[in-house]
């Protein structure tokens, strides 16, 4: 646990948007406790064959960098400028109009000008100009260029690990400049000299070895899922199967490990299992590919590919027809926008067809992986599920669009359709805070750790305040989402800003309402709360 004290909400809300008197290039970074994440442990770097494993912390004055660190970074920049059009273009065409400035949840919550996406990008753009453009080489500061120094590097670390890669700024940018892309490359560069955070690299190392980010071994996964099956039986009287590593299953189901490991994700996982049982789906979990989430996305493109490779490999080994994916945010960024390109083609799988409704998921015909809300919405539409929404009458729900399904997929209506059919009290938050304009939970991209708590509360403030509005207007008491990181980071955010609001996945809501064959009369929801 971090020793940093988090200010009270009233204190934290005193946010000033007036920039400091000193120019940004002359304002050094301040590693204030509560606003940064611990450095990656040497063992995790070593486990992933990454450079410069050592004991250090960002608050140290000496970061124990390799002697030629500057050359490594500049070479890395050159390589990436040649490999990514996005990176070169985003370095070149920003006009600093500032439309993105107050769209970032970290800027809104902190008032720190370097959290304006434009300035976060200028941190690296200034170095780009100095070493890769003639104007920067000749005119230096006048052209907005500066030398790459240890102080600049520390600034990169602080602010690239103070961006959750949510892409909200990109929606408002007239050129679509995506700070997530710049942050991803910035983090890649930092990783070249061993500067990462432990909350990213430990999960990545665990995923690599055990298949899931929590490092749960095969027996543990089975125990957890059996335990959830016991709970389901207790609530519903129905015993569901727990198929694991089954060859010959039709469908491989991959979900974030948070779903079967920690509340309230476990209730969502129970929801999946109940649904699959009810429709008689021939599916299997896998212990090797036991993680949908991909902490490579917060490390480097190479690491995305290394971790993601397991999903197709396991689908091939088990001989399934296609893959179904659980509720998760950045997992779906990877599956939707990277998996097929990196690890495809998945020509050993079949085009996904729902075995229950016969619906062909045309939108997933190449990747062969379907999002569970697409799958479930189709079931409901075809009348395959019997739902009793009144069982959710104790819940007054609002829905948080998770960043990546929103801005990297456009998955807006499917979860809402399931929600509308599963409960009677659903209230949308303000328009500026949902759908493509949704606000991040403040703890994505590996920042959801305890030592970074003040920054999480700041970054999550815009989301929390939008929830507070519907609490006051409509008596909302539950926040729905389709992201495992949300299910971990939103509860403390709610406790801090809007006490009394709890968090759930959409499939928990669905399973509450799901009328199962042979079930006993339900007196409680999945959490054991009476209905």
């Amino acid at each position, binding site marked *: 646990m971090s020793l940093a004290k988090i200010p009270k909400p009233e204190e934290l809300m005193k946010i000033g948007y007036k920039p400091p008197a000193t120019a940004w290039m002359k304002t050094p970074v301040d590693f204030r406790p509560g606003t940064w994440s611990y450095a990656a442990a040497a063992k995790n770097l070593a486990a992933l064959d990454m450079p410069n494993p050592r004991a250090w912390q960002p608050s140290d004055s000496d970061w124990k960098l390799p002697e030629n660190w500057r050359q490594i970074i500049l070479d890395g920049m050159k390589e990436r400028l040649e490999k990514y059009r996005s990176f070169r273009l985003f370095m070149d065409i920003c006009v600093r109009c500032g439309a993105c400035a107050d769209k970032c949840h970290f800027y809104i919550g902190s008032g720190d000008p370097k959290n304006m996406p434009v300035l976060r990008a200028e941190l690296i753009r200034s170095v780009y100009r100095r070493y890769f453009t003639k104007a920067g080489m000749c005119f230096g500061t006048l052209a907005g260029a500066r030398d790459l120094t240890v102080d600049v590097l520390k600034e990169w670390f602080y602010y690239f690990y103070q961006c959750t890669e949510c892409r909200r700024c990109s929606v408002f940018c007239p050129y679509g400049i995506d700070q997530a892309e710049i942050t991803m490359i910035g983090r890649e560069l930092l990783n070249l000299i061993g500067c990462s955070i432990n909350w990213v690299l430990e999960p990545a190392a665990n995923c690599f070895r055990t298949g899931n980010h929590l490092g749960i071994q095969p027996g543990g996964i089975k125990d957890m899922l059996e335990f959830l099956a016991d709970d389901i039986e207790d609530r519903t009287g129905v015993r569901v199967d727990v198929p694991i590593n089954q060859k010959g299953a039709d469908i491989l189901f991959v979900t974030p490990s948070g779903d079967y490991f920690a509340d309230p994700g476990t209730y969502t996982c129970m929801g999946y299992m109940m649904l699959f049982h009810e429709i008689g789906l021939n599916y299997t979990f896998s212990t090797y590919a036991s993680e949908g989430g991909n902490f490579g996305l917060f490390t480097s493109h190479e690491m995305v590919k290394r971790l993601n490779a397991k999903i197709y490999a396991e689908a091939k080994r088990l001989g399934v027809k296609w893959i179904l994916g659980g509720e998760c945010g950045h997992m779906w960024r990877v599956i939707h926008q990277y998996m097929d390109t990196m690890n495809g083609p998945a020509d050993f799988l079949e085009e996904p067809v729902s075995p229950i409704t016969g619906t062909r998921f045309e939108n997933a015909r*190449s990747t062969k992986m379907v999002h569970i809300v697409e799958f479930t919405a189709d079931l409901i539409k075809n009348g395959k599920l019997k739902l009793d929404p009144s069982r959710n009458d104790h819940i007054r729900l609002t829905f948080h669009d998770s960043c990546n399904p929103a801005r990297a997929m456009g998955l807006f209506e499917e979860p809402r359709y399931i929600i509308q059919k599963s409960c009677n009290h659903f209230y949308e938050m303000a328009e500026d805070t949902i759908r493509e304009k949704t606000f991040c939970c403040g703890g994505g991209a590996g920042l959801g750790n305890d030592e970074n708590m003040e920054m999480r509360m700041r970054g999550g403030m815009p989301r929390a305040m939008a929830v507070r509005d519907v609490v006051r207007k409509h008596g909302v008491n539950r926040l729905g989402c389709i992201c495992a990181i949300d299910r971990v980071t939103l509860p403390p955010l709610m406790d801090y800003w809007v006490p009394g609001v709890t968090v759930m996945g959409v499939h928990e809501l669905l399973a509450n309402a799901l009328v199962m064959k042979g079930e006993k009369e339900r007196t409680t929801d999945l959490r054991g709360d009476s209905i």
Partner: protein
Amino acid sequence: MKQSVNILLSFIAILAIALAAAAAGRADAPGWFRILPYAAFGLFLAGFVYRVIRWAKAPVPFRIPATCGQGKSLPWIKSNPLDNPAGPLGAIGRMAAEIFLFRSLFRNSQTEIVDGRPVYGSAKWLWFFGLMFHGSLLVVVLRHLRFFTEPVLPAVTGLSALDGFLEIGVPALYLSDATLLAGLAFLFLRRAVLPQVRYISLFADYFALLLIAAVAATGLLMRHFFPVDLNAVKTMAMGWATFAPVAPKDGSVILYMHLCFVFILIAWLPFSKLMHLGGIFMSPTRNMINNNRSLRHINPWNTPVKVHTYKEYEDEFRDKMKAAGLPVEKE
């Protein structure tokens, strides 16, 4: 402080160009004005092509559109083809909306903390004046084509007539001149006055606005206050266009200034942030189709990586898997 220096320096730079142009006008300028247009236009063309090729040479390894509306999924779910294109037509439409209507900027809002909570107010001013500025600039550029063709293209004559339909003054004030200056004034004041925008602004940000303003101002001065011999100007421009440059006759100081500002603007454009003119077409978050899962995107450098195979995994955990009753490949 630093920001004020940038503003001051950009004014000084503009003044210096004006003085240099005036001095050139007094000295043996005509000779220069046979070479400068080619040098400036050459730099513009070469620079523009160089920059675009530079961008184009870098591959787009992943398909990363930023989706701003419902994607195409199940047939009964209404998708938003403009903000989340599922095909080439949608992507073209999205790009057209960005380029001609500044679609994304139209979303702009302004965040303030009111009564202990953030409020997102409407803020369309940047969009309005931004669009007005760019549109006016386009009209002004098109109107100038009348100097480069003989006879003048009917479309250009028509545009000029439309632009001057208010018939204020003699010669008539062009609407686009007024809106261009209004747009520039808004953009400059916004940059210089709003603390956040001022904080992020570089010298080049002020300089670009002032340079275009200087072009417009000298143009307006010539049209309304210090008339120049338009026939001579046309002869000069036609000379450039036909690669038979002739020295301007009795060029006024204002004309030399106007030309110098224009030459510097077009020569500098490809090497400055003004290159967003070309870059916007290539932005992968905007010009790509969100068909990621239905059509495989190819990464030309899809580098092999070290993975942890199932075999390695089972080798490590086989005993535990067997103990838990999980199937294994190798007993």
